[in-house]
């Protein structure tokens, strides 16, 4: 079990009003799973993703990531936990515009204290894994949207995280590039990578093996994806 969320509540304070965003969410994800968390906008799926990604803390409830209880961790420990266990993929890629693909991919390695030569080697390896072995020295501006997202995936994978956490990974892509990204996800999952993907698009969600529907901050349905 990699993810274990138990009775998670999350409230937001809006002026004097307390707005509940997540209500009693419990979810477990095992190693090697490929889960899509699906819901309309405002359903709380992004908040759930932030909590899973250790970017935000629940108001109440227990959360264990890779066997570690996140609740009482300090900021610095959370940084290290994110570095070691989570690979983030965002809708808008978030690449450093002035750095090459390889430098972008190597970024988390520098935080992990990997030596420069080794960083370069592993970055190139990660880029080859996502099919961009021939784009190592390219700047983000010289790459297409789909290629940028693959660079971002290589960056997420380069530190061998326990889980790949993707927030609308195809949201900024045309459908053909989106399909290629989904193919890449499926392949990575076959290679043993655990993937949690957040999307509002049922077609994209259908690529996952398991779909969790979330509506109004509650888990509405949790089941295997219909092929």
């Amino acid at each position, binding site marked *: 079990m990699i993810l274990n969320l138990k009775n998670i509540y999350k409230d937001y304070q809006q002026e004097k009003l307390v707005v509940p965003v997540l209500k009693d969410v419990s979810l477990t994800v095992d190693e090697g799973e490929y889960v899509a968390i699906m819901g309309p906008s405002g359903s709380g799926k992004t908040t759930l993703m932030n909590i899973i990604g250790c970017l935000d803390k629940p108001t109440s409830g227990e959360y264990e990531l890779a066997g570690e209880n996140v609740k009482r961790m300090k900021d610095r420990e959370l*940084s290290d936990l*994110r570095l070691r266990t989570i690979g983030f993929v965002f809708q808008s890629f978030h690449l450093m515009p002035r750095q090459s693909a390889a430098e972008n991919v190597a*970024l*988390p390695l520098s935080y992990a204290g990997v030596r420069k030569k080794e960083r370069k080697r592993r970055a190139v390896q990660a880029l080859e894994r996502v099919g961009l072995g021939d784009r190592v020295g390219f700047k983000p501006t010289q790459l297409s949207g789909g290629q940028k997202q693959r660079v971002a995936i290589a960056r997420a994978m380069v*530190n061998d995280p326990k889980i790949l956490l993707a927030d609308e990974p195809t949201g900024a892509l045309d459908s053909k590039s989106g399909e290629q990204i989904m193919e890449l996800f499926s392949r990575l999952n076959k290679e043993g990578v655990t993937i949690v993907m957040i999307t509002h698009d049922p077609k994209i969600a259908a690529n996952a093996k398991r779909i969790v529907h979330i509506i109004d901050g509650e888990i509405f349905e949790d089941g295997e994806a219909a092929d």
Partner: protein
Amino acid sequence: MFENIRLSFQGIWSHKMRSFLTMLGIIIGIAAIIAIVSTIQGTNEQIKENLVGSGENAVEVLLFQGEWQYEMEYNGIPAGVPLIADEVVEQLGDIPHVESVARYVSRSCYNDVYRLNTGLSGGYVYGVDQNYFDTCDYIVREGRGFTERDYSEYHKVAILDEDSADALFQGEDAVGRTIEIRMEPYIVVGIVAKSREFTPVINTIDDYYTYAENSAGVVYVPAASWPIIYGYDEPQNVVLRTEGTDYMTEVGKESAGILNTYLSPQDETITYKAKDLLEQAQQIQELSSSTNTMLIWIAGISLIVGGIGVMNIMLVSVTERTQEIGLKKAIGARKSRILGQFLTEAAVLTSLGGVIGVVVGIVLAEVISYLSTTPVSISIPAAVCAVAFSMVIGIVFGVFPSYKAANLNPIDALRHE
């Protein structure tokens, strides 16, 4: 660390115009400081060079009446001022860092010295002891110096320096010829000159008075034969050669103190005082350097203004790069890492400004030197301090923006447009 520095240069390079304008305050401040310091240093070194170069490790201790050197010509021989005995000279020779001591009497001559009908006006007549030429670093260029017998047998012999030889003989051979000092015939036996050829650099009227006052020429006679000319043995002055320029002030004060213990004048304003070229020059210098210190402070204010500019631009930079910061924090960069990145960037920016400022300052100093003939000397420690200080400014004014960056909430930062 090196990674951060490399990234900082990359960032500065990609915003050339903005970075340059940000650095401008630092550049101007540092350049002004370097230019001022170089000018001060240059003038100070000039003073030392003038003193050392002219062999003036010698400090004269003279009889003063109030603020002015005692004038034998008008006031006659003062009561209560004894001749300086040999034991006193020995006592002076025992002062630390004194190499040699000489006694002499002197008068400024208006109408005293003639060769045929050519007079020497504005010069001096010195009655010197046998140590005098050594102590003042003179060598005999032509003829001979004074001998034992010149003193013991009261020979009427004179030695000229080059200026008085020129004035009296206009290039003719002087040695062996006769001159008259107060109607007494004296035979010129030699011509002396400073052992080192040196022309002090004169930039100001003060320099002129400090270094150039003896230029009308001096006629030297043995102190023993002084009364033949002037009728009396007169109170002597002392000149002491020290081991180095730096000892002049100290030795001068100490020997004046010793000489004053033998005085019992009726006129209490009569005392021995050191006529210390170094001290005089320094006093002149202190006046201008206190003005310069003010200038340095004013230039310092421009550094603070520059620092605020850096802070401002760093805040802009943090806002611009909010998404980047958010991403870095999300994928596992610690706070300290972000803090370090922005602090490095601010420090690199201002250090670069400091380096450019030093270069501009050196150029500025050279231009000032060229235009006003003030000497400049570039001080390496000052340059290093200036760069280090500008780096400190970067760090101080970078702390707030960097702290702000490090504490951004990654969720909000990632969503920032």
